[in-house]
């Protein structure tokens, strides 16, 4: 198995990375870059890859290398990694505007993503799509809230018709529950027993709008009302999220039926760039309490953490520099 490409020296090697085929092996160990790595280390590494990528992105944004807009997933890395550590090669992942983390956890190439954000021909979509519009292998994202949910449902219908046991993972945000098309989709997903896991990343905010003035009633009931079983977890701990997601994906695949997973999480960064209207203190508290990197990092010895950090940061820098040297 060759999990997340970043760890397998694929970066910069020019070879196409492949999506994570099932995540860590059953015993909790994976081969990473020629080393046997335990599951905890592996998950940490994956999350840190996203964090490092997006931190560098934000750091360099002001230099004008990147254009347009960008939505980072700071604080939500455990969702991307926890969920996508369970997917198989034929599975489909559908994401939204906040898609970098999902893309990287899917096995996407950081260099191709940097290049995309720089508007280079080497980018994931040749610079046409930009930050929100990625497609690579079975990964698709787009920037119109809710609009990709029926698309994800249709993909699940396709896989079901093909009978090939593939499942669809669809990420969406709490604010996107405002869009009517979400409910049209939930209804058909349930009616037709589509093999899809909807991952609702509830960071309690949409751009600047707190969930409590945008979402009436209950998020979980919105799935239940359509007969879609829903699991709710309030956690930024990848070790809590991952097994839950694993069970649900197993069920979606095995029973060919839908499941929803509502993850209460925290957005540690701004919505896109410089547009956070929450009190600084609130955000600082979230950093204290809800940073998945800190939470999971506490499980690893300092020396390993340092090694990983150095390693990943170097790889991300390499990816960045290689992207920068690309055409256009």
């Amino acid at each position, binding site marked *: 198995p060759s999990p997340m490409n970043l760890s397998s020296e694929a970066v910069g090697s020019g070879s196409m990375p492949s999506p994570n085929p099932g995540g860590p092996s059953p015993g909790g160990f994976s081969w990473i870059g020629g080393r046997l790595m335990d599951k905890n280390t592996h998950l940490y590494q994956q999350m840190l890859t996203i964090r490092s990528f997006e931190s560098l992105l934000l750091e360099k944004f002001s230099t004008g290398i990147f254009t347009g807009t960008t939505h980072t997933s700071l604080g939500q890395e455990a969702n991307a990694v926890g969920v996508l550590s369970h997917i198989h090669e034929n599975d489909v992942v559908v994401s939204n505007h906040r898609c970098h983390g999902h893309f990287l956890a899917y096995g996407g190439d950081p260099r191709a993503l940097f290049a995309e954000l720089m508007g280079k021909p080497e980018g994931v979509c040749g610079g046409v799509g930009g930050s929100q519009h990625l497609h690579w292998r079975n990964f698709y994202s787009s920037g119109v809230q809710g609009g990709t949910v029926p698309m994800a449902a249709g993909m699940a219908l396709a896989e079901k018709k093909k009978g090939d046991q593939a499942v669809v993972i669809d990420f969406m945000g709490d604010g996107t529950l405002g869009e009517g098309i979400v409910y049209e989709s939930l209804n*058909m997903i349930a009616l037709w027993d589509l093999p899809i896991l909807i991952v609702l990343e509830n960071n309690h905010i949409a751009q600047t709008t707190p969930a409590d003035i945008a979402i009436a009633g209950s998020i979980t009931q919105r799935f239940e009302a359509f007969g879609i079983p829903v699991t709710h977890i309030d956690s930024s701990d990848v070790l809590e999220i991952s097994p839950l997601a694993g069970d649900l994906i197993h069920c979606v695949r095995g029973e060919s039926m839908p499941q929803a997973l509502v993850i209460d999480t925290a957005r540690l960064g701004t919505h896109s760039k410089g547009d956070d209207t929450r009190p600084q203190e609130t955000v600082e508290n979230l950093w204290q309490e809800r940073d998945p990197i800190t939470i999971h990092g506490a499980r690893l010895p300092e020396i390993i953490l340092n090694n990983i950090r150095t390693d990943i940061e170097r790889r991300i820098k390499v990816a960045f520099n290689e992207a920068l040297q690309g055409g256009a």
Partner: protein
Amino acid sequence: MTDKSSSTVLSSLNLGLRQSLQDDPKVILLGEDILDPYGGSFKVTRGLSSQFPERVMTTPISEAGITGIAGGLALRGFHPVVEIMFGDFTTLIVDQVVNHLAKFTAMYHEQTSAPVVIRTPMGGRRGYGPTHSQTLEKLFLGVPGLRVLAPFHLQGEDKIGSPGKLLYNAVTQGESPTLFVENKMKYLLKLLSESDLTEYRVTNHGGSAKSDFPFYELRLKGAPAAGVTLAAYGYMAKLAMDAMHQIAYQHEIFCELLVPTQLAPFEIDPLLASVRRTSRLLTIEEGTLSLGWGAEVLARTSEALGADLKAARRVAAKETVVPAAPNLEAEVLPGVGDIIQHVKEMV
């Protein structure tokens, strides 16, 4: 096919769908109330769910949702066909079409495409009132990445008949998201066979899409050089034929009638060739005037011909709702009389 069932636009479309399902296992039909025995509000899908129960899916009343679902199916290899029960409800799928289906190919850097065919009946003259009688394809004719087709009621060479063949081609080609514009009045039209067309010379100028998506030119045999080019599609093409005939016999004004079946992207050359001969162009459509198909056709003709375009006009619906009352409806929608009057004023 010599039985009666293949003799109207409706039966031809039905046959086209049936044949698509038969020949192409990737075809899936989605729509509201499309199952037998009902077979859809206008019966285009009649019999299909009985024959292909696994691939004809009736849906909740969720136009946007089913269009999106079809998009997902298409991205993953299927050739879905969506029926929107009334063309008026295509307003609900604009986001899915404009921002999703039609964008995927370019936005994802040519890596994929979503070849969904969306069929829908447009048009009035049935007294259904303001929300069930519109001709709204103009909302879609200028959408990059979307093909728009409208059948002509010819028997054609194929046993399916031209309308069904057009649909069959769009569905089974699986190349591009497509809006397939039907028309409620057109359903009932008998397909024109050779014997119906003995007075006409019919040429197909399909250009690059010739065989799949024809562009017809009709002239009256033995008529003198035409003075006006008429351009029309769908049900209005039938009214234009009637008008062309009447005006020739009653007013001795002769026209050439151009009938494209692919409205977008629109290959205008056959039409320009005609207008180069006539210097006069009348476009005819059932939708409201502003920013309609005729506007684009006139604009492109004017761009191409400049002062050689001596007279240009458009026949279209009045810019208001389509009333329910038949007499009011008739005032709003363009008819044969309007075409004749415009032609007379142009020469």
